[in-house]
């Protein structure tokens, strides 16, 4: 990627589409508010959140590979911090610190080249990082010579690093792909679309509860609708990745359609168990970073390895 982003038809395509959607959504909210006198506070807050998030994301991608890696690394650090604060792991500064350093390392190896080569991104080290982080985290109680109550912080730090740091960090590494714009923008668009479809189909057709103990408002109808939309979407935006064939497009649809919903539910399991509603309050109208990227975390590495297996990234 380079700053000639605007010359890239994929980047331009998504930019126009999103600008259009934002304009239409803004007009709709204004129409409801001023013509039909409806209460739109909730929608307006969420919309304002998007108005900030979308330009920041496009800016990070626009300025190239380095800013994209930095952007996703910062998001991963923020997501992990929210997880640590919500679970209470944050009180253990040793564990938290090691996991944060590990997440920063995901960014660094994404930024580096393969040793003795000009291939961007040190893939081997990205895959090996969990080994070192697990080793370091297990070392902490030993250095402290303490056993009582240590399993909980160990487990939380491991889950936090592997899931919010390393798996989500695959987004940062995708910036090294030949078709980085295509893959990143597709994921950034398709995953929220899956969320929105589940919500919309659930609202309109929802009769049967999906997983009432994890997320009481989800329905089977919403889940199936979201899967259908997600399966169709890769074909709709085929211009993003002309190199992908039928098999890859099908898999991309399944990964987003099923993985996106599982990612959402996975964070719901954590939230329900703790007994909280949102993971944080950074983005008004959306909750925390983790509430926004929950589905993306699950989808990013699955999509990454699918594409890498069939096409190679570079």
């Amino acid at each position, binding site marked *: 990627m380079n700053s000639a982003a605007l010359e890239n038809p994929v980047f331009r395509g998504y930019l126009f589409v999103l600008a259009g959607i934002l304009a239409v959504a803004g007009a709709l909210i204004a129409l409801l508010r001023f013509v039909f006198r409806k209460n739109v506070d909730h929608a307006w807050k969420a919309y304002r959140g998007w108005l900030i998030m979308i330009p920041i994301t496009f800016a990070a991608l626009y300025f190239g590979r380095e800013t994209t890696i930095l952007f996703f690394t910062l998001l991963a650090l923020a997501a992990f*911090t*929210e997880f640590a*604060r*919500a*679970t*209470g792991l*944050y*009180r253990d*500064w040793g564990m*938290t*610190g090691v996991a*944060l350093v590990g997440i920063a390392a995901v960014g660094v190896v994404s930024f580096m080249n393969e040793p003795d080569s000009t291939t961007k991104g040190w893939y081997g080290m990205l895959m090996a990082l969990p080994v070192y982080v697990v080793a370091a985290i297990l070392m902490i109680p030993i250095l402290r010579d303490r056993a009582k109550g240590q399993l*909980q912080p160990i487990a939380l730090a491991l889950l936090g690093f592997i899931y919010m740091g390393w798996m989500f960090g695959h987004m940062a590494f995708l910036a090294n792909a030949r078709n980085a714009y295509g893959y990143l923008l597709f994921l950034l668009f398709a995953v929220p679309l899956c969320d929105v479809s589940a919500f919309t189909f659930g609202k309109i057709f929802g009769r049967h509860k999906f997983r009432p103990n994890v997320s009481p408002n989800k329905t089977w109808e919403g889940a199936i609708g979201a899967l259908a939309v997600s399966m169709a979407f890769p074909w709709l935006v085929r211009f993003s990745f002309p190199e992908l064939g039928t098999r890859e497009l099908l898999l991309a649809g399944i990964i987003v359609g099923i993985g996106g919903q599982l990612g959402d539910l996975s964070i719901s399991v954590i939230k329900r*168990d*703790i*007994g*909280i*509603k*949102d993971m*944080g*309050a*950074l983005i*008004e109208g959306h909750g925390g970073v983790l509430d926004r990227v929950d589905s993306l975390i699950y989808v990013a590495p699955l999509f990454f390895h699918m594409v890498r297996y069939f096409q190679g990234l570079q």
Partner: protein
Amino acid sequence: MDAWRYEPTADFDQAPIQRLKNFPRQPDLLVYGVRTVAHAVIRGLMRVWHRLEISGREHLPADESFILVANHGSHLDAPALLGALPLKKIHRAFPAAASDYFFTNISRLVFSAVVINAMPFDRKENPRQSLDVCRQLLEAPGHILILFPEGTRTLDGELGRFKPGIGFLVAGSNIPVVPCYLDGAHRAWPKGKWIPRPRKLRLTIGAPLRFADKQAVKEEAVAIADSLRDAVLALRQSP
């Protein structure tokens, strides 16, 4: 096996700016890290740019909570006084800062809360409540409260009257009050100037005073404030 207990951080559902507005603030790894680095840099700058000289460190109580009172010449005062403490203690040292000035604007709020570790002091509407917060702060061991009892920066370099609040705070308690005099801060950075000028700073720390035998009534509080002012002034005359 015991069930796991999740205890979210007390302020986990608040936006970052709100978290910084709270007092007492929850300990935060990131904030502590930034503060430590910032103070290492500030200490270096003060040593080089202002040739800061500190004498009387031996008067600082080692383990118990105490109060530092000083003259207020400029914004350099709080960093200079914090500079007299060991770096690891700065997270438990709280300069009281006017909430109407330092906690109303976002950039000042972030700097005061993150770097200075300021305690918002409501000097206008409800100073009594703020004094209660000070009292609670000092009940925990190892806390340091930094107060400028004049209540505002000096305009002419002279030491103003001390407000009686400090008297109410310490009357009848055994908390040590350490008088300090910072010389040169007003010349280095007068009110209204954008950046500090490279003038010499000299911080003198005096012997602690205690007011356990006093009562929290108006006359005695005023007397305590006056005697603390004298103690600070005395440090000015003996360089």
